[in-house]
């Protein structure tokens, strides 16, 4: 097959556009990795390609900061948030999708409305609640407050997913005398795992990345999560930011996320679009 020069040029332009998109998307992260390998004065020279492998910043970030604790905190908070919101989400979605009751539509709209909340709108009220419960500077304060943005989303996506499952399934189970909880566990859970993986992942990412609540409801460095740890990382003076350490820490917390996202690409895209387009 021969191509005319015009078609060839168009093809070339097309791939040029694709290349620009890829470079634009990937370059900042690439540059962060590059910078994280530099020590001392090397940082202040601009390089476009790696010139040596130096993991000094990666060890010093754990030595100079309680960064291991920050990671552990983030893991504890994010996993608890995922577990809690999935558990509550399944039961709620089951009720919303399958049981007829008055005000169901209103309830769904309210749940969607909550997900539009500006976080700052509940900040002072939440602060008082957390103080009142004696949870200030505790990880559980973060777990509770993160429910505000993970739960509505989880309920919404799981409800739309459950609605699309055939009713006959549970009718057969009811005829066989199974209880609601048994139906959820034996009939729906096996079918729902793709939706659960998607919402769980998105909730995990949201909790892992959250900054405002984490900044406000924790006080000491050993209770901070990773984003706050990185955000507040400082050096000897306010004008001397330890860029090498910051970049190393950034790479450490981002690499697992990037791997997760790439591995579950399809699920995440479908989850995002289910949350938005159908809403």
């Amino acid at each position, binding site marked *: 097959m021969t191509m005319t020069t015009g078609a060839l040029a168009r093809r070339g332009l097309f791939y040029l556009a694709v290349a620009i998109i890829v470079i634009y998307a990937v370059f*900042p992260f690439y540059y*962060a990795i590059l910078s994280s390998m530099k020590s001392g004065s090397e940082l202040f020279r601009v390089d476009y390609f790696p010139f040596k492998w130096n993991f000094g910043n990666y060890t010093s970030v754990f030595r100079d900061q309680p960064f291991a604790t920050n990671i552990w905190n983030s893991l504890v908070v994010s996993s608890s948030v995922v577990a809690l919101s999935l558990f509550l989400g399944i039961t709620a979605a089951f009720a919303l999708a399958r049981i007829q009751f008055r005000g169901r539509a209103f309830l769904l709209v309210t749940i969607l409305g909550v997900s539009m909340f500006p976080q*700052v709108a509940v900040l*002072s009220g939440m602060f008082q609640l957390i103080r009142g419960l004696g949870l200030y500077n505790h990880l559980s304060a973060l777990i509770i407050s993160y429910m505000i943005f993970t739960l509505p989303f989880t309920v919404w996506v799981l409800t739309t997913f459950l609605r699309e499952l055939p009713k006959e399934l549970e009718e057969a189970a009811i005829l066989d005398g199974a209880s609601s909880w048994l139906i959820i566990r034996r009939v729906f859970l096996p079918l729902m795992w793709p939706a659960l993986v998607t919402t769980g992942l998105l909730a995990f990412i949201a909790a892992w990345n959250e900054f405002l609540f984490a900044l406000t409801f924790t006080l000491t460095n050993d209770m901070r999560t990773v984003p706050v740890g990185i955000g507040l990382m400082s050096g000897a003076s306010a004008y001397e930011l330890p860029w090498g350490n910051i970049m190393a820490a950034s790479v450490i917390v981002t690499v697992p996320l990037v791997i997760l*996202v790439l591995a579950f*690409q399809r699920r995440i895209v479908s989850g995002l679009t289910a949350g938005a*387009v159908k809403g």
Partner: protein
Amino acid sequence: MLVTIAIVAGWPLLRTIWLSFTDANTLKLDHAKWIGLDNFLTRQDGHWYGVLADPVWWRSVKNTLWFTVFSVSIETILGFGIALILNQTFPGRGLVRAAILIPWAIPTVVSAKMWGWMLNDQYGIINHTLLALGIIDSPIAWTADPQLLMTSVVLVDIWKTTPFMALLILAALQMLPKECYEAALLDGVHPVKVFWRVTLPLVRPALMVAVIFRAIDAIRVFDLIYVLTGTNERSMTMSIYARQQLFEFNQAGAGSAASTLLFFIIALLTIVFVVGARVKLTEK
């Protein structure tokens, strides 16, 4: 579940609204006294006081709107372009889609730091490249020059959220019926015309939803700007203003008043958007 949502969302919201009518201090929240609308606007000895009389508040409103309008519109256009490209079949498409997911996956704080480093006026790669290419002849202080702060912030936000837009639009594009395009191709309609006459009207509902979501998200922007430029007045947004009042000045009353205002602004905009989008849908 309902109880949980009520506890984590309803109660704090009502509490915040209530606090906005009190003289509460952040350190002694329980000793709040009702003072009516004084936190919003009050007149004493011939001077106006309260959030609505604070020039910093109005500055933050202006910044927030500026940020929202510019970032969302540029993201929509860029996202649309990327979506159109990804809608073609070509070898390596999966890889490209994976690549554009990376900015979305990176935590906002991390991307703010990464860009803060790249935009560094002395050692940043952006200035280095622009200088090398001869586009500028002296380094630009991206995150220090008050005139440029908001531009830098929008720049970073575009990088971070365009993928989200592109993926939503791509999902909408892939649901379009193929027949329309085949018919247009047979009739020899110019591709640009096909885009305006067929593609755009068909994806408009989905596009509207994506834009609304992004706009609501942009109005409450906090972490990106907070980490990139701090609580600088020139790049302050409504969320940063409210938090500063609450936890740096310990003015729980004024901070709550600002939060409440932001909440109602967003609620109002959401209603306007939703009603507007629906009216347009029924027109057809």
